[in-house]
């Protein structure tokens, strides 16, 4: 349902939770002249922008996204939502910056390229994004992919096409800097999360002693992987979780294959701060289940002590969260135990050339 919201129409009241929105979103809202209010509408029109604007908020009423309305909900569910949102927000930003002839320098500074029917932005035939948006019809084709460093996205509508090339950078795509993103993760982990359901089935690749090992992928090193140790029960394979196989059980638990009552005293290294909170390990997996792949390495550090490195990799925006947990083999099996853990969040991976140089 569309409603017209202009400065003159003050009947719609909008409240934005200041802490949740990013600096970029705040700048857009200020540039459009929209008062700080609670958004009740999903689409609205701003007089200076030739395409309607989409606004999304979560169940707590916190602003999640603002941009030109190109993809629609269904298309975003089908494709990578972060990339769709990035393109919508970018085009809105450029419309605003075009007023001050800053759009080209913005693209240059961010190392973003946009081609309209093969014509680079700024050249004859593609000098104004706002005008282009005004003539845009429904998208018929959209593809996007990245090679670890750069994203390439292609969309078509009618006989026209738009191509985007931009760094596969979390900050650029999500529109939040390190501080904003770290604080968002801290809020997520301390908020309410749905408990996980353990429905995954496993295939055994190979036997190892009395156990089986699942097929797996690794992250940077072979020993950091998502391999699960399995035991055969009837005709199916289930993750092992018993005292006879402590190391394997720890590996399985920290790769998210086994439910656990274990709690963590997390020391979360956010930008310029060290936040401390205690949360169940289950909650971390609930928070990161949907958008991340999980990889683990388990090592003995002596005297029955174990150190676990868990990597949560977000492929869409090319960054990781890294959780380092210390626990003893004995304590792993005790109820009510809290282990010490350090969390580093939002570590970019797109700008790394070589991390393993000796």
């Amino acid at each position, binding site marked *: 349902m569309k409603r017209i919201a202009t400065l003159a129409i003050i009947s719609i009241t909008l409240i934005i939770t200041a802490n949740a929105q990013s600096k970029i979103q705040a700048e857009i809202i200020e540039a459009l002249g929209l008062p700080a209010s609670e958004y009740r509408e999903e689409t609205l029109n701003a007089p200076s922008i030739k395409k309607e604007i989409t606004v999304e908020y979560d169940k707590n009423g916190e602003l999640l996204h603002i941009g030109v309305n190109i993809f629609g909900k269904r298309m975003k569910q089908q494709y990578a939502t972060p990339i769709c949102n990035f393109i919508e927000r970018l085009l809105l930003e450029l419309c605003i910056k075009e007023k001050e002839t800053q759009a080209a320098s913005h693209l240059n*500074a*961010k*190392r973003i390229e946009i081609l309209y029917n093969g014509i680079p932005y700024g050249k004859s035939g593609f000098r104004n994004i706002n005008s282009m948006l005004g003539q845009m019809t429904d998208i018929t084709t959209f593809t996007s992919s990245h090679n670890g460093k750069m994203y390439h996205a292609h969309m078509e509508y009618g006989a026209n096409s738009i191509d985007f090339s931009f*760094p596969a*950078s979390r900050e650029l795509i999500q529109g939040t*800097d*390190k*501080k904003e993103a770290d604080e968002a993760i801290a809020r997520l982990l301390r908020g309410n999360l749905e408990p996980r359901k353990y429905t995954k089935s496993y295939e*055994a*690749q*190979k*036997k*190892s002693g009395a156990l*089986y*090992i699942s*097929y*797996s992928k690794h992250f*940077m*090193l*072979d*020993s*950091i*992987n998502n*391999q699960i140790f399995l035991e055969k029960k009837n005709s199916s394979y289930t993750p092992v979780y018993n005292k006879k196989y402590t*190391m*394997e059980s720890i*590996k399985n638990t920290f790769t998210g294959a086994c439910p656990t009552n274990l709690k963590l005293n997390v020391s979360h*290294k956010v*930008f*310029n701060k*060290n936040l401390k909170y205690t949360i169940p390990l289950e909650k971390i997996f609930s928070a990161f289940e949907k958008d991340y792949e999980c990889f683990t*390495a*388990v*090592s*003995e550090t002596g005297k029955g002590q174990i*150190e676990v*490195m868990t990597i949560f990799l977000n492929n869409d925006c090319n960054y*990781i969260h*890294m959780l*380092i947990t210390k626990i003893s083999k004995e304590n792993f099996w005790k109820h009510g135990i809290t282990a010490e853990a350090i969390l*580093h969040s*939002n*570590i*970019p*991976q797109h*700008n*790394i*050339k*070589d*991390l*393993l*140089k*000796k």
Partner: protein
Amino acid sequence: MRKKGLLLIATMLLSMTAHAQLDLVTVEITDGISDTTLKETIESNATILISEFNRTIMEGGKPKLPKSICSKETTEDILKMWKSSPMSCPVSSIKEKLLSSPGGYQIRNIPITLMNAPDDKADQDLVINFTNTGEIDNVMIAIDENRYLDVISANISVNDLSRRQIIVDFVENFRTAYNRKDINFLNSVFSDNALIITGKVIKVKKNSDMAGSLMSQEKVIYQKQSKAQYLENLKRCFKRNKYIDITFDSLEVLRHPRYDDIYGVNLKQYWNSSTYSDIGYVFLLIDFKDDAQPCIQVRTWQPEKYNGKQINRNEIFTLSSFNIKR
């Protein structure tokens, strides 16, 4: 008629021989044992095992292993493995050295193809363990053995990688501090004795005798600043620019060969601000003596180009450019 019959038999024999040859894999030990009889026993048992795997893949069913090559328990283990991981050997001849292992001997690096694995996981290596008398004791896929051991006792490189990822996190926070104009954060991460070197491109006028005219060249001069001077200049920069937007790319992290808690980071910096833009190479020497509070001991900046060319790779500051004494 007789000739045709003989021809038919010959053809059948040829095809049977070819078929047999397809599944036959000969294993030859090149080194590692002086006992000739035991060597021949091990070679024969390994040949029978691998060839039987190939025959089973071609004809179906389960591997049939003679009692002479392995015990009943080992046969059962191999058959259990076969259920989830049937395999074939893509080569007809294997030549490997024999290794000693606890309880006997071992042959490694036997190439196999796992028939049920995804394409990118299908090619693996098999390891065969033998008893002291040459019987097959155990068979396992090498990558699983390595991964199993690595999983159980992750080697030092995992710790090193986690430290390097912490450095990437630190560098990202460092970059964010510039963009947020957070002078307090920058003050906290630079050592009080930090060495800060900045390259500056200057034009040098040069006489040309031939043309009688003046030509200018560019060269880079290096200026040293203390932490206090650098931060003071930075404060002024933050004040005169409405925004600072720097990005880092091409990060490389190197650990000092002698001091485990000293790391060098090389990166490419794209500096954009309201009044100025440039591209250059930054080197950071980061001290992790205090894990909770890493600090920057050295920061250098050099231009990406001068005289219209990329700066020579050998000119760029690295960890080896500095002599560190603790």
